């Protein structure tokens, strides 16, 4: 019994111009078990079990579970096993190695301690700023590059490969580059702005701008990915849309702003999810940049604070509490996207 509303949804969502027949009988099929029981009573146990399970969860449940259930359990054991372990430990007061964590009095003391810790608040704010600003900035740069490349230029492949190259480098390499580039005296950054007459800036020393300097470095590394996703998105839009906008007298800028970019919503969302994963990896970059768990002042994020608490101070419980908050923060940013997709029957 096939997924009728998914097909229905697709026909409605697909440009309804040419498809003159729009089904009115929409709605969600839940494979209710209203149909009467199968005729042959004497089927053996497994078949009957399978049929009842199929009816309960939908016709292909048993047959499809062989595909997704084992990987789901493996992931559950590793990913959610760790989440639960962290959650449990964060409710205890476990420190150092001496005694095992006692689960007798589980309390939220660690979380109240975090809220009272100004270092925690700064790190949380920095993490949020980093996640949002990094994703938005990378998408913007990627979009501009994609638009430029999409104008049918020669050497397109080589440009595209060059923009993608940074993604293949490890943070050990990129962190060292950026230490040189941000060097106060002879760094490329200060030389560049020097030519425009602006005085040298202490990119990593100044607390207020170090976070944005780090974000810029991460944008350099991952905007290639955003460019590739947007290039694909642009190429998926039929050329008639470009021509129609031009015929309507829209300037290039307006055309992209009013006609093209709104259609890139799908590409934007899928790129944003992956870029957030890279944003979460900023720990490795900061670790290589400062050669330790303490990034330059003003760029401390939850991940580095968590590792400092857990491994430098051996406050396992406090470290796990920060980990749970970090996981929760990432979900709170991605959660709305998931619910939105679910409500649009897209999930």
């Amino acid at each position: 019994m096939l997924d009728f509303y998914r097909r229905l949804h697709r026909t409605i969502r697909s440009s309804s111009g040419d498809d003159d027949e729009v089904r009115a009988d929409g709605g969600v099929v839940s494979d209710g078990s209203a149909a009467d029981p199968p005729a042959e009573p004497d089927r053996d146990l497994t078949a009957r079990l399978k049929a009842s399970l199929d009816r309960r969860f939908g016709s292909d449940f048993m047959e499809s579970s062989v595909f997704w259930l084992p990987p789901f359990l493996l992931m559950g054991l590793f990913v959610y096993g760790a989440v639960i372990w962290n959650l449990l430990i964060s409710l205890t007061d476990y420190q150092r190695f001496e005694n095992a964590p006692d689960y007798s009095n589980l309390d939220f003391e660690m979380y109240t301690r975090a809220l009272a810790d100004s270092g925690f608040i700064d790190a949380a704010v920095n993490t949020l700023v980093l996640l949002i600003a990094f994703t938005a900035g990378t998408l913007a740069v990627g979009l501009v590059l994609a638009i430029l490349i999409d104008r049918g230029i020669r050497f397109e492949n080589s440009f595209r490969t060059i923009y993608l190259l940074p993604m293949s480098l490890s943070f050990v390499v990129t962190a060292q580059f950026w230490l040189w580039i941000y060097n106060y005296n002879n760094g490329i950054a200060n030389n560049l702005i020097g030519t425009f007459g602006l005085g040298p800036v202490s990119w990593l020393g100044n607390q207020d701008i170090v976070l944005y300097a780090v974000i810029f470095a991460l944008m350099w590394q991952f905007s290639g990915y955003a460019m590739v996703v947007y290039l694909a998105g642009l190429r998926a839009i039929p050329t008639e849309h470009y021509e129609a906008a031009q015929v309507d007298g829209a300037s290039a800028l307006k055309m992209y702003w009013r006609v093209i970019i709104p259609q890139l919503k799908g590409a934007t969302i899928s790129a944003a999810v992956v870029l957030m994963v890279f944003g979460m990896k900023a720990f490795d970059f900061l670790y290589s940049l400062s050669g330790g768990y303490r990034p330059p002042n003003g760029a401390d994020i939850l991940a580095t604070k968590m590792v400092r608490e857990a491994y430098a101070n051996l406050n396992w419980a406090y470290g796990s509490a920060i980990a749970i908050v970090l996981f929760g923060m990432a979900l709170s940013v991605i959660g709305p996207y998931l619910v939105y997709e679910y409500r649009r029957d897209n999930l």
Partner: protein
Amino acid sequence: MATLELDSITKTFQDGDEEIVAVDDVSLSIDDGEFLVVVGPSGCGKSTTLRMVAGLETITAGTLSIDDRVVNHVKSQNRDIAMVFQSYALYPHMSVRQNMSFGLEESTDLPDDEINRMVGETGEMLGISPLLDRKPSDLSGGQQQRVALGRAIVRDPEVFLMDEPLSNLDAKLRAEMRTELQRLQNDLGVTTVYVTHDQTEAMTMGDRIAILDGGELQQVATPLECYHEPSNRFVASFLGEPSMNFFDVTLEGDRLVGDVFEYPIDEGIRSDLGDATDLVLGIRPEAVQLVDAAGDHEFETTVDVVEPMGDENTVYLHFDPDVEPENASTLVATIDGFNRVSEDDTVIARIPPDAIHLFDRSTGEALHNRSMENAADQIDL
């Protein structure tokens, strides 16, 4: 070859909290080898019905049986049916031969050479033998459509199901494929259920046609019966191009009084009406004749628009000249091409009493249909 029995089939969807009835208590029985066309406007439930027969949709209520075997819970692959989809649904990475042999490889354990022989034969029959080793993307729309057909035929199923297979073709190719499909179906004699929204296909191809609207079965009959003896107002308006004229009339004594004319009727028609008084009078444009003298059944009209169609003209006539054209009630008539009529002429239009249909205005149900003996056999499409 098999008989197909739909017994009060119903399909409901759960959209959020309210429930939508897509197919409401449809009962159909299709004989062995019959070519039934299911037709209706968009969203009338015809595709849902077809998908329920195919097993691609669960059946909310009612029983579906093939050759008297209840198949509600039988998986689609075990119903021995083949389906041609609107988008052909060919496998892009497989050659035409592989596309056609996929069905046999999956559902039967025939040896490969046997399968190749059958595919070759079907290719011969459909004239696509030279294409067997090409990829679907290299073929034209028509060729792809034939391959989709071939894929269904080669499986030699009990039942053919076709979901608007011609709608993606251009007009000329569509006409060719219509006749070829009919010829094929007659040769193979496979029970076929064919869904379309195009009434021309319905009228020309089906042994019988089932007309659906709003999920409810309006009428199941031969094309001629549906055309000439529509069971209700919807069927009457749906078939025929240009569609039937309708005038609201009320029965007073032995005359039908409309707002622009009065129409005397004889006792025979009178007896069919029973006690219904609020009626709708229907007359096919091709049944209207232009005559010289006014009378009981002839009315003075002015010509608003003439649409020459080559072999015949479609004329839009108004009853009362002083009212502006758009809200005057019009009578559409089709007359043969040589009849010289031009705009603003006043002509006498005759509505022959044996060609009128009368429907109950509230239920739309047909109370009186035209008599069949001198009805011209041509169907004006």
